[in-house]
């Protein structure tokens, strides 16, 4: 019905939007949200290929599940870090945190 390429294009669009967000958001939480978007775009890819390449062992879906789990874990740890940084530096804007500047 819907050709494979359309799904892929959709996932590409979402990936690029997420990339743009990861590069431009000042708020650290915003960056993390953009990263979630990127992961989801990758998920779409997995499911698409799972359906259209027709493997009987459902590797794509399993992989997508694992990705979701990992995304969750990373979001947890990331947010814990953000909160710790917020406690220290009193800010969550990424462009204010430049201790490693030359």
């Amino acid at each position, binding site marked *: 019905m819907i050709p494979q390429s359309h799904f892929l294009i959709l996932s590409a669009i979402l990936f690029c939007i997420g990339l743009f967000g990861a590069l431009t958001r*000042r708020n650290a939480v915003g960056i993390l949200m*953009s990263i979630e978007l990127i992961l989801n775009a990758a998920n779409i890819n997995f499911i698409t290929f799972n359906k259209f390449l027709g493997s009987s062992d459902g590797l794509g879906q399993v992989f997508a599940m694992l990705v979701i789990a990992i995304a969750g874990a990373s979001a947890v740890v990331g947010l814990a870090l953000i909160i710790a940084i917020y406690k220290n530096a009193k800010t969550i804007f990424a462009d204010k945190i430049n201790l490693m500047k030359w």
Partner: protein
Amino acid sequence: MSGLIQQLNNTGLPQEFMLKAIFYIIAASTVFFAIRMVISPNVFHGAIFLALALIGIACIYLYLDAEFLAVIQILIYVGAIVTLFIFAIMLTASIQDRTIKQTNEQVLLSAIVAFVFLCFFVTIIRRNPWQAAASKAEGLALAQLGRLLMSAYVLPFEVISLILLAALVGAIVIGKARK
């Protein structure tokens, strides 16, 4: 989707067309929400838009015969992770101020980079002659998925649990208030 299609067949509407139209609408709105998320000045709004985008993606999963995954997506992503994001946003103040810029100064460059990437991806995708497999699986039943998890993919399953444990412990350690 085949069951749905059968049902829709009964209603007499041009099913394929309708499905297709709905797909594109959902896809467009997902993209719209995603864009709104990355450029919204209010990060709280951004989180809401993220939730909406994720729901949109879940609907798309439905089109791909991945019902379980769609549900999982909504449950975990929207239900847990976005909630977590909102917690973090609440905890880290300054969401009220509208005058604070939310995008940093490398907007133009990033836009260009993202756009070029997009073009690249699209070009690749369109160039490639996608062949659909001869026989497709009719979708994976839930029971079958569960069985797969416990047999063929038990290793990743266990590793995931370890990762989750590590994340848990790590989050607690990092988040602990220091004496």
